[in-house]
């Protein structure tokens, strides 16, 4: 051992170097989600500090504008979609064939679109009743936090569409598999964030 320590380094290693190593990409993606999590936390914190009468500024507060019904449906759609994505991941992992994987992913996509549709309707309603972000600090925080999540889901939907096209044309190749693994992480992550939004904004606001 001691004479090896004296040599410092040698040229007898057999390293494997790949530029598109999926393991690296997954690690990088975890780190990206950590930084994204910071972004969401700061929007959450801002929202919490803006629940005060000073920030509501005589405008409508959460009880005046939020409705549990539509949010509950949104939650249902998104939670189900995370489950169906899980089924798709299992289908890919166990090699159950392209059709099954794509089938579950299509269901996921549809549920994602349902979620976005419901959220769009919800915010259109807020516009209608004059609960616009220009009205108060509280409403700015609401319009900052919830649509930020919606934007993320939109990005996820676009990504999922691209993945489906790739899967349809190329089959379940290594690249596609790695992409699906990352998107799955992203999708479940957005689900977690939504649970935060549902609890803090909707349940907390209406309690």
């Amino acid at each position: 051992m001691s004479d090896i320590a004296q040599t410092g380094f040698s040229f007898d290693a057999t390293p494997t170097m790949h530029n598109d190593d999926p393991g690296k990409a997954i690690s990088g993606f975890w780190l990206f989600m950590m930084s994204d999590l910071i972004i969401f936390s700061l929007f959450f914190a801002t929202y919490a500090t803006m629940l005060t009468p000073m920030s509501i500024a005589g405008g409508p507060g959460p009880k005046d504008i939020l409705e549990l019904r539509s949010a509950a449906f949104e939650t249902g759609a998104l939670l189900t979609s995370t489950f169906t994505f899980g089924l798709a991941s299992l289908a890919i992992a166990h090699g159950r064939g392209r059709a099954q994987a794509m089938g579950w992913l299509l269901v996921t996509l549809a549920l994602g679109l349902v979620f976005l549709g419901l959220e769009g309707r919800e915010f259109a309603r807020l516009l209608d009743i004059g609960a616009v972000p220009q009205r108060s600090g509280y409403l700015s925080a609401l319009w900052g936090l919830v649509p930020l999540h919606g934007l993320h889901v939109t990005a996820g939907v676009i990504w999922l569409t691209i993945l489906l096209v790739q899967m349809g044309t190329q089959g379940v190749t290594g690249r596609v598999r790695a992409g699906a693994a990352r998107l799955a992480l992203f999708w479940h992550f957005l689900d977690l964030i939504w649970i935060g939004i549902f609890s803090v904004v909707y349940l907390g606001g209406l309690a």
Partner: protein
Amino acid sequence: MTSQELWSLALGRLDVDALDFLKAFYAPSENDDILSGAAWVVILGAVTVVALLTIFRAWRPLFRDWLTSVDHKKIGVMYIVLAMVMLVRGVLEGVVMRAQQADGLTGGFLSANHFGQLFSTHGTIMVLFMAMPFLTGLINIVVPLQIGARDVSFPMLNSVSLGFTTAGAALIMISLVIGEFSTGGWTAYPPYTGRVFQPGVGPDYWLWAVILSGVGSTLTGINFVVTIYKERAPGMGFMQMPMFTWTALCTAIMMIFAMPAVTVSSAMLVLDRYLGFHFFTNDLGGNMMNYANIFWLFGHPEVYILVLPAFGVYSEVASTFSGKRLYGYGSLVAATMVIALLSFTVWLHHFFTMGQSADVNAAFGIATMLIGVPTGVKIYDWMATLFRGRIRFTVPVIYLLAFMMLFVLGGLTGILLANPAVDFQVHNTLFLVAHFHNMLIPGVLFGLFAGYTYWFPKIFGFRLNEVWGRIAAFNWIAGFMLAFFPLYVVGAMGMTRRTMAYAEPAFQIWFHIAGVGAALLTAGLASLCVQLWVSIRNREQTRDIGGDPWDGRTLEWATPSPVPEYNFAVIPRVHSREAFASAKAAGAGYPEPASYADIDLPGPTWTGLVMAIFGTTLGFGLIWYMWWLAALSFAVIAVTLIGRAIRGDRHPRVIPAAEVAAEHRAWLARIRALPAAPRTQERSPANRGMAAPEYRDLRP
């Protein structure tokens, strides 16, 4: 459609009044002449660069070998070139402000608005577009070499990061020519930067420049954490990593967690300014304290993002040039990590005076003072490294010694400021400005200069001129002391920061002294330029053929200079810390591999360049309300990134084993023929990059 509507559809709110470079002709005054002059310098500089590239037919090589390259060393060099350009502007702005204040008793020669733009651009540039690219460049160049890797984990992403940073810098340069910059300082506190107080383009330039470069830095952080986790050569555990790599790791982790905060505070301010939200406005429930908190959640870690890599450079310099192993490696690692952690817990000291309770202030004051402990540990470790070493008085060592003395002083004034009771007295005065320049110039800037001097031969194959290096170093050191120590005095006397003029005659003499310091700093800057010129001209006398001009201790010195694009002919297996020093001591510094293998390299890509160009036009479109330009640029960026993600690297290259073997064997042959230089001849032409074996401290 009227022609006016057409104009605003195409050019948004841009009009002839926005063109600074014409001001000297229709509104001549001392202030506007300076403004126009600066704009003309930018324009002429750009024209000169274009002309030179054309005359020397350098366009094609520029694109092929540099702008589309994903080689981490070239990306690193491009970062540093960007940093140097911004450094020139930043220093000159500082000097103009010093001149203004030297003349400040009689009102000076600048308008208040212009002075406001000067400290805003100066601070923003120095922190985000000088120090950040400089250290990112050094990390890019050095880390893969120190850990025995071929490249970073995500080479294409690396050039995307550079692209976004460049786009941010380009916007700041454009603000000098078209329109104006924010007057809200580098912190851009609302509501003053909101649209009620500054409806113009100024704060928008700040916002988009900061957002673009912030995204670039987040991606850099991700890239380097993965690189350091995944690409280390076999056998290199965490505790075998060179100290600079350790500091790079901590900085990269901090980038991932700190940069999103400034992205959030800026995005909210964008919503306030563009869509009339009320995050930070005075009316309708906005709360500017949220901005202060979020911004400094980024801002304080940011100063440690800047200084940790400089600490890494100083660690390498201290052990290399005293011919000793680094003292207290474990404690340095621990101190670095503790600093990284603590730096997220002290942000509130930037606004002790903004109304929270005394208990809260006390808690943050104590947390702030605690950072002094790990930093003190480091200083002692460096001193112990130098102790009884055979120290060679090279340029990096000069910077190191100046740093050790001046940084302790700056740290002590920091401890003073950490006491809320004291801070209430000197808050927002030039005392604070003196303190943070005391940390940033000896701490960060000198470290960057030391690293530049130290690693220059590794990349370019020749050393920098020693004489001009010393002249520059002494100008910077003396200039710093003369320019900033007087500010402690006037600050304690009550002179506020960001103030262009004063009525108190007692201040004047101190500002005159500071003015002399500014002149020396200008001389330091000029000496750096001369040094580069002289070094290139006399490069044959300082050739680094062997690749080890300083008797280095870590793996980067075990490669040829300039380093081939694949870095190592064969990936090394590492058996110890300071692997190269141990190998040399065992007489095995230049082993010949039993066999060579083909090397896969990522191909060139236009992606980074597309980000730089369309990132700039995206920002420009948003700033001037040219919505078509913004939408178009965004579309190009999105399509490019998605397209690249789908297709992957279409031009990967393979360097055949035979070619690698031939190059490596040729280098080994050249090395064997080289006369080894003892350290006494380190700075003479006898140093060809092959170190003679000497006393080396290798006790395990």
